[in-house]
């Protein structure tokens, strides 16, 4: 397929179509609405299911029902809508049915705004719904990666009978750039042996998340934890840039990681030996790889479009072995490469310590006027 000039939301929708999505249920919310709109004509055109639900609560439960039949199903939303889906996601996790959710993240908390943000990291990566479960969360940094990860999401969801999410900050959903769509795949031709699709010539099947006997619920929790360990062992994804001889490492995902790459290149031009580590799977998190980087580098700069939600996971991986600094733009603001470049220079030139809280130092620099927001 040739490269086309594609908007992220359309591209993710069409990628899902080509990955064989059979049913889509969603609700309008900026900045993901184009995805819903694309599905509204594309799915019926292919005799597949599209339904605009009355709310995100209904949409996720329609997904739940459709997923129980063994179909490849998905929904998409943006932050406040994803908050509403958390109930359904917990039930889906409690039933082990596969599904895909694309979250085009906007500024929050509350109604917030419709500008790009990474404020849903904790909501997606660390659960959000009640109970113990782990979704797979993938973070694209370009339209092309959004396409590729959408296709992958369906495969991972089916492989592990697990929730698989794309965390695309608003800029990934809204921006246009050249990208290549995959070939159209044939639709699923078999039905999984757990699907509730009518008990013709077989015994009854029940799909439920209730295990009223705590001893059985304990066994179930162990079971999905085992699945999670298999996912951790096999599905860690990340990209490394200029890390071979790097003395300093920038860590950022999605749009923040992409902007950091420009800053890293500019810093290299100034002679600073710095590289970029960009996690793609936020869950499972590449903690071991980051721990290794901590052993060979003199300092780490974490940059995000939230107030340091991934920073906590990086600190947990680094275990105080190396100084960490933090820089973020939040509330729907995307950083400029020069802002991150300034932080790289500071990391390379100023004395640093592995003690203290990088987030508090960042806030103090803001208050002291050391950082001026552009």
């Amino acid at each position, binding site marked *: 397929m040739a490269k086309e000039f594609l908007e992220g939301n359309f591209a993710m929708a069409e990628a899902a179509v080509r990955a064989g999505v059979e049913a889509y249920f969603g609700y309008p919310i900026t900045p993901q609405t184009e995805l819903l709109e694309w599905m509204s004509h594309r799915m019926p055109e292919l005799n597949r299911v599209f339904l605009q639900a009355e709310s995100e609560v*209904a949409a996720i439960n*329609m*997904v739940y029902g459709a997923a129980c039949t063994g179909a490849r199903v998905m929904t998409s939303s943006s932050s406040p809508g994803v908050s509403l889906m958390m109930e359904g996601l917990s*039930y889906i996790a409690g039933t082990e049915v596969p599904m895909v959710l694309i979250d085009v993240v906007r500024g929050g908390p509350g109604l917030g705004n419709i500008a790009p943000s990474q404020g849903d990291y904790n909501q997606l990566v660390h659960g959000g719904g009640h109970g113990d479960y782990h979704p797979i969360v993938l973070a694209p940094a370009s339209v092309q990666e959004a396409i590729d990860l959408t296709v992958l999401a369906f495969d991972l969801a089916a492989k592990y009978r697990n929730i698989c999410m794309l965390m695309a900050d608003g800029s990934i959903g809204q921006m246009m750039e050249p990208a290549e769509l995959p070939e159209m795949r044939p639709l699923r031709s078999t039905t999984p042996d757990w699907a509730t*699709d009518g*008990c013709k010539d077989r015994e*009854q099947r029940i799909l439920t998340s209730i295990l009223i006997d705590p001893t059985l619920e304990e066994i179930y929790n162990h079971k999905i934890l085992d699945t999670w360990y298999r996912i951790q062992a096999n599905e860690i994804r990340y990209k490394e840039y200029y890390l071979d001889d790097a003395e300093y490492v920038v860590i950022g995902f999605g749009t923040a990681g992409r902007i950091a790459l420009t800053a890293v290149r500019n810093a290299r031009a100034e002679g600073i030996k710095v590289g970029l580590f960009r996690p793609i799977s936020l869950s499972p998190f590449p903690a071991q790889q980051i721990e290794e980087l901590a052993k060979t580098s003199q300092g780490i700069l974490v940059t995000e479009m939230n107030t340091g939600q991934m920073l906590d996971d990086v600190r947990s991986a680094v275990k105080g072995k190396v100084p960490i600094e933090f820089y973020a733009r939040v509330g729907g603001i995307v950083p400029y490469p020069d802002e991150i470049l300034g932080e790289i220079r500071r990391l390379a030139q100023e004395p640093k310590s592995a003690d203290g809280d990088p987030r508090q130092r960042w806030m103090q620099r803001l208050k002291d006027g050391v950082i001026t927001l552009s």
Partner: protein
Amino acid sequence: MDTPVQTQVQTVYSRPKSLSRTPTHYCPGCTHGIAHRLIAEVLDEMDIREKTVAVAPVGCAVFAYNYFTFDWVEAAHGRAPAMATGIKRVLPDRFVFTYQGDGDLASIGMSEIMHVAARGENITVIFINNAIYGMTGGQMAPTTLPGQKTTTSPNGRDVETMGYPLHMSEVLSRWDGAGYIVRRSLHDPKNIRMAKKAIRTAFEAQKRGLGFSMVELLSTCNTNWGMTVQESLKWLEERMIPVYPIQDFKVSSGLDGFKA
């Protein structure tokens, strides 16, 4: 000559194939068991057991799937109509029904039931209205009668502060998407027979693609009403029916000539 011995035995009553042998967890005297049996008889008679996927609610019927022999899923509280929509849209040739109580359907699931009816989703809802929350132990429901005592309306439901009971069949039958909506009761044999005919007709409406169908079944909860079984049947007849009349609220012309 000796009188010939009668050897031919005719089975007049047996367990429907759609009903499992599992003993229910329902309280003695509860009408859930009757509703379950009526559904099973209808699915047997229509020979659609293997083509049916049902959605269980949160409430006393949360384990309904244990008492039948076909496929079930278990919804979050109130979300059964949305889940049923997902199943039906993917598998339009299957029979899909939800089984929901008054708290599930008329309180927390109000949005989902309104929209499934408005969309004319081709599913069937069996709505158990016993005017109280059963599983959590007798709290006020959206269908609790004015003055009725519950654990959260200990002095009786005061409509000034707690509002009025909801009439779901009346409301939902106003939507264009509704194909068949009736209210029946399970308090005596005559009404039970009428209820079965209504359930049969509701599934016929689904078979004919007539849109949303619902049978509201007035039911007893002798445990949480604090009554004997006999008293509760009488209370249903004397107190509930005047508020919730046994009536056909919507019968699509697509059912003309159909007799259950």
